[in-house]
Structure formats: structure tokens, C-alpha cells
């Protein structure tokens, strides 16, 4: 199909593609090259390549920033939060797509409204709430907050389940299958692609979130990757190579995971859009 286009259009299209790709790749190359240089080399020129690449810089940054601990903290929080969200939101999305009840539209709009509330505005009241519950400086405070991030997931699951014919559940009901089993045994397996998409999107959001861990997880031993990386930037002001190495450490692993699962995300989104 691409080949059928006029040559000029094809050339122009490639220029666009290469330009955008370069804008993404070049900063990464710059980061890697900067990390591997000595401070002296960095001061001389931002473009030069490292004379003798110092790969130990990553080990240094990893150890000094205690990234093992940071990653364990971040992963723990993210996994629990995403698992919970998938469970609640698939259920709610299914209810909104397949059941008829009073105020259904209103409930849906209620769930969507949260997307428009600036998170900064609820910071103080939320902090107050968590303090009252005695949850400051516990993982529970951030995880419960993430459990409230339902709008996008419900929106997506509702659209997805709407694409699944209701007759399927009806047939099962006639057979005498309980509602609970219809949801668990029939609907959820069908929603696997949506689960994958929502799961990965939320994984990225929650893993990268900065604000809530910042206000709730004050104890150093509870810190997440983003928080720890920020603290690292401040305490190593003049050590540009270490600073950049920490940036790479904070972005590398999520990036690799993303690249591995890219096809699932894409397929999930396409399927989601199809069903919707």
C-alpha cells in the first residue's frame, strides 16, 4: 500500500519518521554517552564520546542510590495497586456494560468525573484522611490512593465488555450458571486483552507517579524509584555522570519491560477499540 504512493510523498513520509525517531533516540544516546564520560570530559564538550567508557558508573550509581531497595519498593506498590484496580474495575466495567439498572448513566458519569479533578487539589484533604487513619508512612496510604484511580480503567473495561455479546451470558444463565461464575469463568477470560492493556497502562502510571509517594512515604526506607532518583540528583550536583547514570537506571528497566510487552499493549488497544 505504501509503495503505491507517489515518490515525493514517500520521501516526505520517511523524513517525518526519521525526524521523530531521532528526537527520541538522540537524548538516550546523549545520556548514555554522558554517563560513561569523566566529569572533565563532560565539561569540555557535550558531544564528544567517552575516551575510555567507564561502565562502573552504573554500579556506583546503583549502589549509592540503593536502587535495589527502591525497585523492590516501587514494584511492590505497583503490583498490589494494579492487581486491585484490575479486579475492581473489570467488575465495575462489566456491571456498567451488561446490566440494566436505575441511574446507570449517572453512575458512569460519576466514575468519569474524577478524571477532571486536578490531583493537587485533593492533596491536603487526602493527607488529612490518611493521617486520621494513621497510614502516613505506610504503603497502604499510596496503594489506597491508587485504588481510587478507577476512571480510565472503568471507561476502558466498560467499552470492552460492551463489545461482548450479552447472549453469551444469557445462554449460561439458562444453563443455571451462577452470576458469579459467569463473571469469573466466562467474562474475565474473554477480557484478557483488555486486562493486559489496562494493566500495563496503570503499571506505567503508578510506577512513574511522583506526587503521592512524595507526600505519603517520607521514611527513606520506603522510597520509590522516582523519589530516590530525585534525591540522588540533589545530593550529587556536580557529578554529572553519576546523575545521568541514575536517570538511566530509573528509566532502563521499565523501558525494557515495555519493549518486551509492546505487542500485547498494541493488540490490547486495537482490540479494545474494535470492541468499543
Amino acid at each position, binding site marked *: 500500500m505504501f509503495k503505491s504512493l507517489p515518490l515525493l510523498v514517500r520521501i516526505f513520509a520517511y523524513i517525518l519518521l526519521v525526524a521523530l525517531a531521532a528526537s527520541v533516540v538522540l537524548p538516550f544516546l546523549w545520556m548514555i554517552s554522558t554517563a560513561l564520560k569523566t566529569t572533565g570530559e563532560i565539561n569540555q564538550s557535550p558531544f564528544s564520546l567517552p575516551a575510555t567508557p567507564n561502565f562502573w558508573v552504573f554500579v556506583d550509581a546503583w549502589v549509592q542510590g540503593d536502587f535495589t531497595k527502591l525497585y523492590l519498593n516501587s514494584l511492590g506498590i505497583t503490583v498490589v495497586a494494579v492487581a486491585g484496580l484490575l479486579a475492581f474495575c473489570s467488575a465495575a466495567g462489566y456491571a456498567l456494560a451488561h446490566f440494566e439498572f436505575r441511574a446507570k448513566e449517572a453512575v458512569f458519569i460519576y466514575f468519569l468525573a474524577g478524571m477532571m479533578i486536578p490531583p493537587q487539589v485533593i492533596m491536603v484533604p487526602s493527607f488529612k484522611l490518611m493521617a486520621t487513619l494513621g497510614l502516613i508512612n505506610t504503603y497502604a496510604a499510596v496503594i489506597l490512593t491508587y485504588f481510587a484511580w478507577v476512571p480510565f480503567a472503568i471507561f476502558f473495561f466498560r467499552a470492552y465488555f460492551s463489545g461482548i455479546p450479552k447472549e453469551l451470558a444469557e445462554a449460561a444463565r439458562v444453563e443455571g450458571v451462577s452470576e458469579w461464575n459467569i463473571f469469573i469463568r466466562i467474562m474475565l477470560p474473554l477480557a484478557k486483552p483488555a486486562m493486559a492493556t489496562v494493566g500495563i497502562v496503570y503499571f506505567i502510571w503508578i510506577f512513574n507517579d511522583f506526587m503521592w509517594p512524595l507526600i505519603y512515604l517520607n521514611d527513606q526506607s520506603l522510597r520509590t524509584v522516582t523519589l530516590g532518583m530525585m534525591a540522588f540528583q540533589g545530593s550529587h*550536583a556536580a557529578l554529572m555522570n553519576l546523575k545521568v547514570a541514575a536517570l538511566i537506571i530509573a528509566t532502563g528497566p521499565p523501558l525494557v519491560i515495555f519493549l518486551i510487552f509492546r505487542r500485547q499493549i498494541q493488540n490490547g488497544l486495537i482490540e479494545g477499540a474494535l470492541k468499543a
Partner: protein
Amino acid sequence: MSKFRSLRALTLAGVALLIAHGGAMAQTVTLNLWSELSAPPESTVLNKAVEMFNAANPGIVVKHTSFENTAYETALRTAFAGGTPPDIAEVNAGSNAFQYAQSGQLMDLTDFVKPIEEKLRPGLETMYQYDGKSYGVLWGLKVGNVLYYNPVMLKEQGIDPASLATWEGFMAASQKFLDAGITPIAFGDRDQWTGNHYFNHILHGILTKDEYDHIGLQTLDPSITSALKWSDPKAVHAWEVYKAVADAGYFTPGYLSDDNDTAAGLFFAGRAPFYSTGSWGVGMAKANGAQNVALTLFPPVADSPEPTAIVTNSLLFTIPTTTSDADAAKKFLEFLTSEPVQKLYVEENFDLSPYQYDSSGWTMDPMLRQIAGLLDNAQNASPFLDMIEDVKCMQENVNEANVAVLTGDLSPQEAGDMHQECVTDLRAERGW
């Protein structure tokens, strides 16, 4: 079955917890201590002090919860507003502490503090006294008006470090560097507080202690009035001097877009010969492995009435009125001011003590000792302006204005006029 088993296990654990808790309650007082000292070495020192205190006082258990700096203010405000502050609270000395005192949430510690005051360096009263009453004990002493320089770079240009003792000497040295193609002063004002400190130190050099203290405190204390106005030539002159540095091209080119860390990095990496920050710069130099660092007092402007005066900053340990045991809390506060704790603090923290113990035998970084010398040599000390002026006027008219003066959005006179207007309105609004 398994559901039951886990339920039973949970219940048992709950009961065990209750018993453990109840048992402990019967014998000891637990005091919750909150602070923003969450990163080493500051957190290490306080935690050690808490351990020492708990070991020496079997009946009292102090439990320290530390908060990340930026979140602490939110945490503490919320806790106070909800009526559940900790038993002992660390707050920034000065205006920050006075807000809580003003709303009646801190215990009046005047009588308790009296004997401790005798150990204290003079000139620090404005940090813990509000409306004639004392509200806590000081912890640590940071000196603000310090100029760091790179002695190797100075030598290369043939500049005598002694010439940095005056503002004119500092400017002449800067010009010499500029002529040699080196931008002299590492400065990044993205987060505004750095420019605030420059303005603060210049102003502090121009005014007498009384003028300086009063022009700030008039927004906090109804009984204090200031003869000097922000729109008067003396105050406006501070803005002019500050702007002249930028106009001369002495600030590193990212002065409006870089943050302080980046600017510090330029200095520690040997790319700019000057950098001004407080005594905490000594610890920063260590963390960054910087070699060629020396320091002197921030150069006072010509005809400074008190050229050796110091700008300081400290933390305050206070006792909220809702504390569970005021006597135990006071005991802890007194312990914090004791010589062993202060020695520990100074030796491990790259910071000074507000208490006058004989420190000649303590292990101290030479640069820190030099700062201690500046302090001993000072005619007097005053807090940072942001500690003695209400945030409602300070934020807009010093923090934001210092950027606006550099960008040209405000002329020095306009900055002064706006500031004065805010102060006048604020006093009128409060009926002072």
C-alpha cells in the same frame, strides 16, 4: 477451612498486639517526635540522640518519625489542623514557628528555656521568641552569608583572596574573570530561593540590625514598627546592587533557568570561581568530592554599618499544647541542648551549634571551623529574612520579585513599592 484458619491467625495476632501495646503503656510514656531530618547525616545524628535519651530514661520512649523535606510542612500543618500534632515537633525557627504559636498551638516555654538561654550565642532571640514568649529550643546553626571560591582559579588570575573582603573587591575580581573569558559567579535562580538569599545578604549588609529585623518582623509582630520602608532608597539600593551583578554579566548564563544544584555543580566542577550558599555548602563540597574550595564571609557592601554581621538559620524543637506528657517532652528538649549531643551534632553534621560549648577539642572540618570563627567574630546575628517576614509578603515580593528584577519585569523601585504596599495592606487588614 483455610479461611477460618487465616481468620483465627489474624485474631490471635491482633490480641497479641493489644497485649504488647497495653503492657508497654502501663510503664512508660511514649512521645512522638516529628522532624524533617530524614536524610543522613542529619537523620543519623538525631536518631542517635534519641537512642541515647531512651537508654538514659527508662520511663520515656521517644519515637522519631522523619519526613521528607518538601512534605513535612504539609504533614505538620495537617496534623495541627486536625488537632493531632506529635508530642514534640521540629519546625523552622522564626516565622514558621510563630504561625503555630500565634494560633495558640505551642506551649509557652519561657520559664523552661531561661536557663538554656544562658548557653546560647547572643542575637538569636528572634528565632524562638514571639511576643515576648519563648517557644522552643534551637537545633543546629547554619550561617547564610558565605561566599565560596576556588583558590586555584583565583591564583591563575592573580587575584588575592583577601580582596574578597569588600563588595568592590568581589566585583573587581569578577570583572577580571569575565575579561579572561570565565563567567565568575555560579548562580541558578530557577527555584527563586537562591536569588532571595543574594538579595537577603546584600540588604543585610546595607541595613543595621535593628532596621533589618524590624522591616521583616513588622509583618509578624503587631508591636514592631519599621521606620524604614521597602520603597526607601536604602532598601531599593539592595535591589539595584543585585541587578547590577546580573547586568554586568557575572552570573553564569543559565542564571534564570538552572536550579541551585546545577549551579553548585558548575562551581564544584571548577567551571566558575564563585558560588554563594550557606554553611551547608561545606557538606555539599564533601558529597561532591570537590577539592578546590575555600570560603569567606559574603562581601558586605561599601559603608556597611555592621560588616561582620551574620545571617543565620536554625531549627526549633517545640512542644504542642496537646502533648501527652509535657515534663517528659521538656526533659528531651533539655537533653538535646546538652554538650554530648551538641558535640555529636557538630562532629557528624558539617553544621554548627547555637550553644557556646568549648568546641576546641571537637573534630571539625577546617572550613567549618572557619565558619565558626566568622560567627565568633561577628558583631551580631540575624535570621534570614524569610524567617522574620510573613510568607504572604515574602513569597511574592522577595522570592518572585527577585526573578522579576533580573528579567526586567520589575525595576528595583517598583519591586520596593510593591513590597511596601503589601506590608502596609497586611498590617491594615490585621488592624495593627
